[in-house]
């Protein structure tokens, strides 16, 4: 129950985050170039790292994105960069919400 609630909170916060930034780098923008998508993912990951809460698969997905681009699979590369960015944004939202929500896990008090 608590877990479900926390997860929903993360999703909501993450969506709110996307909304705010949509003016300069929207995931859904078909015209976004690889460079833009990749830079946005890197920036999001840096923000999560700065909050000491990155997810473990994100680095690998960014690497795959780079490889796809080097191999000329630009659409794949953009999709992977966007996935990495979404993960980083969710991780950041998780750490922000947990700064308050962690107390919900205090089963012994």
């Amino acid at each position, binding site marked *: 129950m608590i877990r479900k609630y926390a997860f929903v909170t993360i999703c909501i916060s993450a969506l709110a985050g996307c909304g705010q930034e949509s003016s300069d780098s929207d995931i859904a923008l078909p015209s976004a170039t690889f460079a833009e998508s990749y830079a946005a993912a890197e920036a999001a990951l840096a923000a999560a790292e700065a909050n000491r809460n990155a997810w*473990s698969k994100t680095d690998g997905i960014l690497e795959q994105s780079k490889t796809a681009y080097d191999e000329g699979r630009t659409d794949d590369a953009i999709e992977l960069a966007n996935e990495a960015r979404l993960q980083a944004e969710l991780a950041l939202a998780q750490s922000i919400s947990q700064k308050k929500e962690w107390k919900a*896990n205090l089963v012994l008090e």
Partner: protein
Amino acid sequence: MKKIIFPLCLIGGLLCGLTAMAGPEEDRLAMVEYYSDRFPDVPLQEFANGLYAFDTIAREQWIEMEDFPPYEIAIEDGQALFETPFANGKSYADCFENGGIGVKQNYPYFDTDAGEVVTLELAINHCREANDEEALPYMIGPLAEISAYMAYTSRGNEMAVQVPSDNTGAVAAYAAGKQFYYTRRGQLNFACSSCHIQSAGLKLRADRLSTTLGQATHWPVYRSKWGEIGTLQKRFAECNSQVWAKPLEAQSVEYRNLEYFLSYISNGLELNGPGSRR
């Protein structure tokens, strides 16, 4: 406990915001009570043996393993390293109380001057650096071996980590470690507490989940899976990875605070390190 704190809060006014959260000793007692209720057949000291306290089948294999302890070589190597003087003629014994023998129960402690938690492993490297030797890597290798030897000389001593209530730095470091233990991390969105408190004793893949109580008494540990001896913070990193969270650096502020909290919770239990685990 809450009943007592509440009227105090009314009187305490401003202080209330700081003291409303349970303190270290209340946390520890709440853990003892919780796990004693949950595992009524397990004597308190047994929690120092992790999941082997209540998993009878795994326990048999573990007792067999302990007949020829896989960490024995690490203790010997660690002792040799410990007793080898530095280039300047001094040695580890000069850096520690009682020559470093039988002192692990006092770690980690809060160094008020430096404003940080000092784990045994950090103290070992501080000692090296103070004597113009290079710091050693933290998770495995010679430093873990020295730590294993020092743990061995401390066997049977009761864990005695101090969080002085009048030391705001120490109290804050403990509180940060506690918060980390209850904070959901990683793509799988688990806190340490989700597994080791709420799900303690339940099976996750091959293993039953150990209790928070006793999690810090037996380090470093030789794990068959690692094929070598590793420090407690190597286990932190692994547990972070398990929930798809990127581990933090060994001996980062966060991990040291976490170790401070976790070690305090084991206060009163006898040290039994180094240990062996699958």
